[in-house]
């Protein structure tokens, strides 16, 4: 099956062409969208599109193992890692398009265009020959052939990268570790704190409206103002992109609930603007 796509016969030629062009344009559009999108989550999803397209390209170039590794590891693990961190860090709705560094966008664009031109000249001058002769190592025995290479010629880099992975994992653990400075509050402590605070009752739930019922919509108090306690502090940022249009009211400020260990501080996490 992979044969017909990978090892192109004349019948599959137009298919390949079609797949290439569609996916190429799609990935370029996705990449552009990624650097221009406001919300970070959109960027992540567009990157996923690019990665999946690349996976198909690997397939077309006789690298089925890499194609699958791309999907499983890259898109499935690394990108998900991005999304997890986005979740921890939080989303800010408001965005500032204004570039703070003078001339940055201009020069970046110029540099990018110049790089594009130069690299095009490079590949124009370089001799990029046709596809080499296909063999089984690009098809069914791709894994075997790769393994052969990895464990004979490239065994040293292999060992080094495994050491690298271990180091990275340990390093991440060290970086993310938080030392507990105060004793872990027991359930009794939590309950006592809740009774002692200004709202011993459970917090209000988020608002549910006709057009918006996500977790980050605030509930309304009887006088029409928003109840900050109804939105998780993780989700309430310095501003929010969408407001229920009929509602007005002040932005949720940074009301600080009493510092209870375990609860995230309420001052809106200022995830950086996009």
């Amino acid at each position, binding site marked *: 099956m992979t044969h017909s796509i990978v090892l192109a016969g004349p019948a599959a030629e137009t298919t390949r062409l079609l797949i290439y062009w569609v996916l190429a344009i799609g990935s370029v559009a996705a990449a552009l969208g990624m650097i221009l999108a406001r919300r970070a989550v959109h960027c992540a999803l567009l990157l996923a599109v690019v990665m999946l397209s690349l996976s198909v390209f690997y397939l077309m170039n006789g690298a089925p193992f890499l194609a699958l590794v791309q999907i499983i590891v890259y898109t499935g693990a690394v990108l998900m890692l991005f999304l997890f961190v986005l979740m921890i860090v939080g989303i800010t709705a408001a965005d500032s398009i204004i570039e703070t560094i003078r001339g940055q966008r201009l020069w970046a664009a110029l540099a990018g265009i110049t790089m594009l031109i130069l690299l095009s000249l490079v*590949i124009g001058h370089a001799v990029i020959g046709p596809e080499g002769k296909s063999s089984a190592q690009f098809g069914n025995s791709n894994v075997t052939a790769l393994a052969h290479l990895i464990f004979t010629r490239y065994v040293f880099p292999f060992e080094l990268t495994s050491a690298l992975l271990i180091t990275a994992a340990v390093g991440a653990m060290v970086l993310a570790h938080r030392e507990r400075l105060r004793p872990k509050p027991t359930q009794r402590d939590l309950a006592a704190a809740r009774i002692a605070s200004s709202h011993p009752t459970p917090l209000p739930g988020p608002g549910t409206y006709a057009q918006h019922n996500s977790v980050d919509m605030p509930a309304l108090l009887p006088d029409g103002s928003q109840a900050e306690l109804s939105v998780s502090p993780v989700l309430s940022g310095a501003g929010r992109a969408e407001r229920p249009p009929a509602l007005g009211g002040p932005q949720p400020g940074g009301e600080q609930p009493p510092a209870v260990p375990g609860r995230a501080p309420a001052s809106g996490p200022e995830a950086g603007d996009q």
Partner: protein
Amino acid sequence: MVSPAHFIALSVILFVIGAVGVLVRRNAIVVFMCVELMLNAANLAFVTFARMHGALDGQVIAFFVMVVAAAEVVVGLAILTAIFRARRSASVDDANLMKY
């Protein structure tokens, strides 16, 4: 006829887009994602060259690039989290104490 030149061209375009994205975005996580885009573009080039030369070395290198990219993302995001906890900001512009 889809020749390796097509893929190289695409790789170049994606690389440049990723480079510009690193310079333009302020959110640290999005900057990381643009770096990932550049690495992916390089991977595409490697795989294409492997096909061109008829040897699998390019794929092996692409494989290692993926491994290293994964390690890099792990460590980078851990750093980002630590910084975010300390400063409450994930903007790359906020770490500007080394100015004149």
